[in-house]
């Protein structure tokens, strides 16, 4: 299409607006309300241009007018500039306090901001993170559009019309009551500084440093704005997997790094009290005590917990330290508690235990999301937003399977509220329907899989009627879910609701079976996609911080293990080590005498808390390396202060297998040191000849040992990470797994059907409720980081138990009353929160040490993956006396 702008002939694509085309050509048309080119708001009128088309001449907004063949456009003629000046003068009359990009515009047009009538503060300003200045708000509605179209939250809205229009939250409420996600999209959109991050301030010099968020496994890139040694604000980077999105934790969760409570000096417990010591004293003491225990009781009397919050380099070094310096395979980390069953289950079916697809293809191409056991908008918010956007924006379908009315259920076509622990039955039921309706993908089954007959035989008895009895999901819904899933390009998304069961491996394998049955593997917008909970769970596993496999998932005692021994120059023990829960059992029985815990808090995170604390107290020597005096650190003999991930370099591997480089944002506080440095110093003192000068040195060794990482270098991932497997430096990285063959001996995937087995503990007369646990949006894991942040505590100050309104009524409990929740293992008191949850099921978040959900949970293990059943425990409830 040909048009003329300011006398210059321009060829442009049909469908674009005048503003878009002009700006692409470098013509600077001012506009204050424009946010999304395809969805112009058209409220400010500043982009007005003069258009001549045929015999007609008229004026129109450049943002809302699409180009048309033969249009002649003038963008800066004197009368247009005059109009713009008039518009700005009118705004200036009443908006003295305008800042930001709008202020530049007023300066450019030489207009002075005036006005002194104070406007009333709307209630939305009552919140801990975002400030609002009504004197600066020009009602351009960019924030409203950001909140609705970009984030699909619809929290910021317009109240009234015309002159009286103002921006409010919800039904003119405080932001948190209106359901605000505190993602900051409105702040980023605001052109006048009316909405701002509370921590932001004007500084002479601010540096922008991009690194990876310290929280969940999405691995968002965050731009941190730093003045001196202080972060003043942060926002999602447009150059990461998150493409500019972020959540409350990415945007405001960095505040823990500046907490007064950070550990700044090494501490040794002397006569029951911690005393500050030098690094030398602490490291010598740790090395000599570990040596003593090893000599006295043998290497297998020592165990180490590595950390999914530490870098790949540190995990690699930690397990290497345990294996060849201490001499034991007793090394594990919290992935045992989250995705051990994913690794085992997916390995069994696909031959590889990682997320099959990428966020990018799920975002663009999935026609249906089957979200099961994942409260995505709370635990992996940026992926949650992606799903909401796909559903609302491009009409993707959504099936949610969850006993709670999670936020995504509001957006779903179908919500299956199955009883906790009945996932295998539900999935088998869906497969039964698919086969009986002839909806299976015959070609895919024939060419890419084996064991179909066995699957068909197993799922035969799981008719919708039979499954309804087990799961309590109406049979019509089971049929509908099966048909929807099988007839679309469907992606399965799951998290801890699937894995943290005694049937965790069975649940995961069953989901993989379902994907195989319908050919929903190896293609864009499909797959089986476990969402990893910690920023580096994937990497900690890849690095072999596991008792049964070495880096790159090499099995103990194999040829690959011997190759690794050559690189390491030491002997790797062949006996499998103990898993997290087994380590705690062994410690309580006195078989484990010494423990080295890096960046984990098992005293709060692990099931059956009383037992864990007793086990830790039973140790002869406990060393804890952490940022804070965690509940676990309090039980330690030595505490080593570690640098946070914003204070060091290294790599994290996100949920979609993307290896991403951290950039140091700040120097470590006090005498805190990066974990890799600490591990190396202890190793040296125990006789190891290690000389790593930087994380990069360690990564170069990882590349030799872990074939999946071989082609990845720090240089290649400086700007954006690469997804493994990446076998050589010319390899582009792998976006979708299994597109051609499966990494199994014969290249075929193997159907691995399971029968439904009930959870280890079912409700009975004595303990009639099912307790399930999980995260809130605002807090993270055991709260070691988020509970150090005032604003987060203001939003969610304490634990609660979600309960169905009829259950609450029967107990005589009202919203906010105290309830005593008791299981066979202990009891806690928490506030009742009447919520959308299945009758007979209650939910407690596990962030709160003072009312720890894990006092109640069961440590019964999945027989294959040894993951404990954190998601189902039988409890009884009563109103507090």
């Amino acid at each position, binding site marked *: 299409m040909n048009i003329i702008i300011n006398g210059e002939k321009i060829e442009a694509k049909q469908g674009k607006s005048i503003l878009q085309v002009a700006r692409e050509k470098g013509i600077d048309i001012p506009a204050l309300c424009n946010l999304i080119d395809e969805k112009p708001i058209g409220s400010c009128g500043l982009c007005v241009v003069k258009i001549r088309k045929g015999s007609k001449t008229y004026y129109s907004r450049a943002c809302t007018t699409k180009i048309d063949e033969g249009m002649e456009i003038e963008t800066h003629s004197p009368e247009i500039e005059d109009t713009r000046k008039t518009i700005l003068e009118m705004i200036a009359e009443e908006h003295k306090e305008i800042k930001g990009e709008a202020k530049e515009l007023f300066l450019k047009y030489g207009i002075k901001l005036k006005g002194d009538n104070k406007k009333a503060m709307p209630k939305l300003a009552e919140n801990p993170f975002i400030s609002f200045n009504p004197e600066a708000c020009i009602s351009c509605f960019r924030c409203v559009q950001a909140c609705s179209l970009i984030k699909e939250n619809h929290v*910021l809205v*317009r*109240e*009234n019309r015309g002159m009286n229009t103002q921006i*409010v939250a919800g039904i003119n409420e405080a932001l948190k009551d*209106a359901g605000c996600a505190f993602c900051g999209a409105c702040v980023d959109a605001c052109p006048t500084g009316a909405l701002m991050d509370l921590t932001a301030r004007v500084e002479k010099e601010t540096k922008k440093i991009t690194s990876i968020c310290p929280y969940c496994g999405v691995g968002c890139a965050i731009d941190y704005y730093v003045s001196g040694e202080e972060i003043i604000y942060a926002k999602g980077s447009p150059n990461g997997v998150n493409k500019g999105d972020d959540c409350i934790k990415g945007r405001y969760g960095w505040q823990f790094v500046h907490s007064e409570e950070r550990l700044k000096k090494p501490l040794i417990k002397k006569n029951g009290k911690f005393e500050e010591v030098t690094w030398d004293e602490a490291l010598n003491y740790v090395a000599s005590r570990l040596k003593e225990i090893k000599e006295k009781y043998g290497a297998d009397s020592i165990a180490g917990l590595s950390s999914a919050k530490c870098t790949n380099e540190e995990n690699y070094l930690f397990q290497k330290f345990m294996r060849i310096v201490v001499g034991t395979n007793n090394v594990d980390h919290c992935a045992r508690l989250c995705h051990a069953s994913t690794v085992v289950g997916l390995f069994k079916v696909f031959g590889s235990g990682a997320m099959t697809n990428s966020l990018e293809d799920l975002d663009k191409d999935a026609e249906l999301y089957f979200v099961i056991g994942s409260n995505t908008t709370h635990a992996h918010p940026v992926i949650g937003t992606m799903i909401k956007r796909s559903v609302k924006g491009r009409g993707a379908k959504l099936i949610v399977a969850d006993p709670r009315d999670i936020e995504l259920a509001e957006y779903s076509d179908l919500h299956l509220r199955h009883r906790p622990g009945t996932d295998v039955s539900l999935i088998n039921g869906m497969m039964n329907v698919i086969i009986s309706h002839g909806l299976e993908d015959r070609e895919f089954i024939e060419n890419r899989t084996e064991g179909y007959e066995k699957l068909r035989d197993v799922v035969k008895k799981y008719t919708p009627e039979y499954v309804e009895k087990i799961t309590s999901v109406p049979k019509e819904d089971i049929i509908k879910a099966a048909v929807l899933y099988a007839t679309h390009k469907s992606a399965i998304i799951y998290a801890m609701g699937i894995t943290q069961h005694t049937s965790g491996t069975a649940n995961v394998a069953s989901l993989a079976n379902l994907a195989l049955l319908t050919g929903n593997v190896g293609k864009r917008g499909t797959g089986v996609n476990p969402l990893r909970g910690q920023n580096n769970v994937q990497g900690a596993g890849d690095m072999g911080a596991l008792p049964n496999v070495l880096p790159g998932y090499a099995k103990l005692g194999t040829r690959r293990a011997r190759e690794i021994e050559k690189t390491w120059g030491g002997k790797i023990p062949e006996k499998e080590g103990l898993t997290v829960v087994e380590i705690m059992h062994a410690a309580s029985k006195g078989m484990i005498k010494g423990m080295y815990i890096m960046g984990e808090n098992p005293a709060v995170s692990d099931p059956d808390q009383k037992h864990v604390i007793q086990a830790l107290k039973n140790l002869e020597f406990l060393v804890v390396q952490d940022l804070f005096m965690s509940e676990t650190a309090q039980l330690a003999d030595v505490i080593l202060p570690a640098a946070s991930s914003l204070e060091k370099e290294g790599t994290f591997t996100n949920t979609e297998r993307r290896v991403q480089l951290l950039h140091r944002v700040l120097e470590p506080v006090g005498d805190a040191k990066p974990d890799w440095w600490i591990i190396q110093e202890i190793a040296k003192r125990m006789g190891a000849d290690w000389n790593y000068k930087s994380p990069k040195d360690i990564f170069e060794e990882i590349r030799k040992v872990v074939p999946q990482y071989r082609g990845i270098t720090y240089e290649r991932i400086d700007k954006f990470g690469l997804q493994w497997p990446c076998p050589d430096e010319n390899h582009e990285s792998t976006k979708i797994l299994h597109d051609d063959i499966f990494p199994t001996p014969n290249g075929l995937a193997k159907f691995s059907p399971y029968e439904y087995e009930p959870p280890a503990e079912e409700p009975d007369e004595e303990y009639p409720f099912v307790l399930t646990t999980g995260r809130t949006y605002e807090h993270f894991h055991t709260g070691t980081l988020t509970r150090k942040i005032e604003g987060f505590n203001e939003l969610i100050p304490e634990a609660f138990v979600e309960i169905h309104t009829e259950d609450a009524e029967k107990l005589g409990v009202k919203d906010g009353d105290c309830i005593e929740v008791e299981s066979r293992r202990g009891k806690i008191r928490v506030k009742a929160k009447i919520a959308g949850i299945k009758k007979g099921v209650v939910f407690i978040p596990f962030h709160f040490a003072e009312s720890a959900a894990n006092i109640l949970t069961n440590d019964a293990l999945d027989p294959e993956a040894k993951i404990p059943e954190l998601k189902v425990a039988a409890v009884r409830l009563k109103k507090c006396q």
Partner: protein
Amino acid sequence: MEDKVVEIIEKHRKDDAKLLAILHDVQDEFGYIPEDAIKVIARELKMKKGEIYDTASFYSFFRFKPEGQHEVLVCDCIVCHIKGAEDIIKRLEEEFKVTMGETTKDGKYTFKMVKGLGHCEKSPVMMVDGKLYGNLTPERAVEILRRCEQ
């Protein structure tokens, strides 16, 4: 209240432009649109409460606060203004402890300021529950309203 709102929603469930019809019926039922009703509508229509409030607050005929038993329209058109409407408004606001547009704490009166009731010959005027009172003085206005209470 929830049951009633759900009943109204069910009545319109199959309509194309159901939100406005639902809001009208809710206001007819309760005299205004209560916050809790907005929450129920949001849940049932799978919308966010803010989206509903955004739409509803566009229309001046939707109310979000309960109205008093008696509606008092006080005219402040140019004629009434010249003839002392300002003093009447001031007196009423003091006497009933409200500002124009609000409802008294006891829920008896909702005061609204209007521009023109079409009876300039009797100005200053006010209208109570549809009945016009003219040639007012501040004292007479109070007296008329106090009489409603009996």
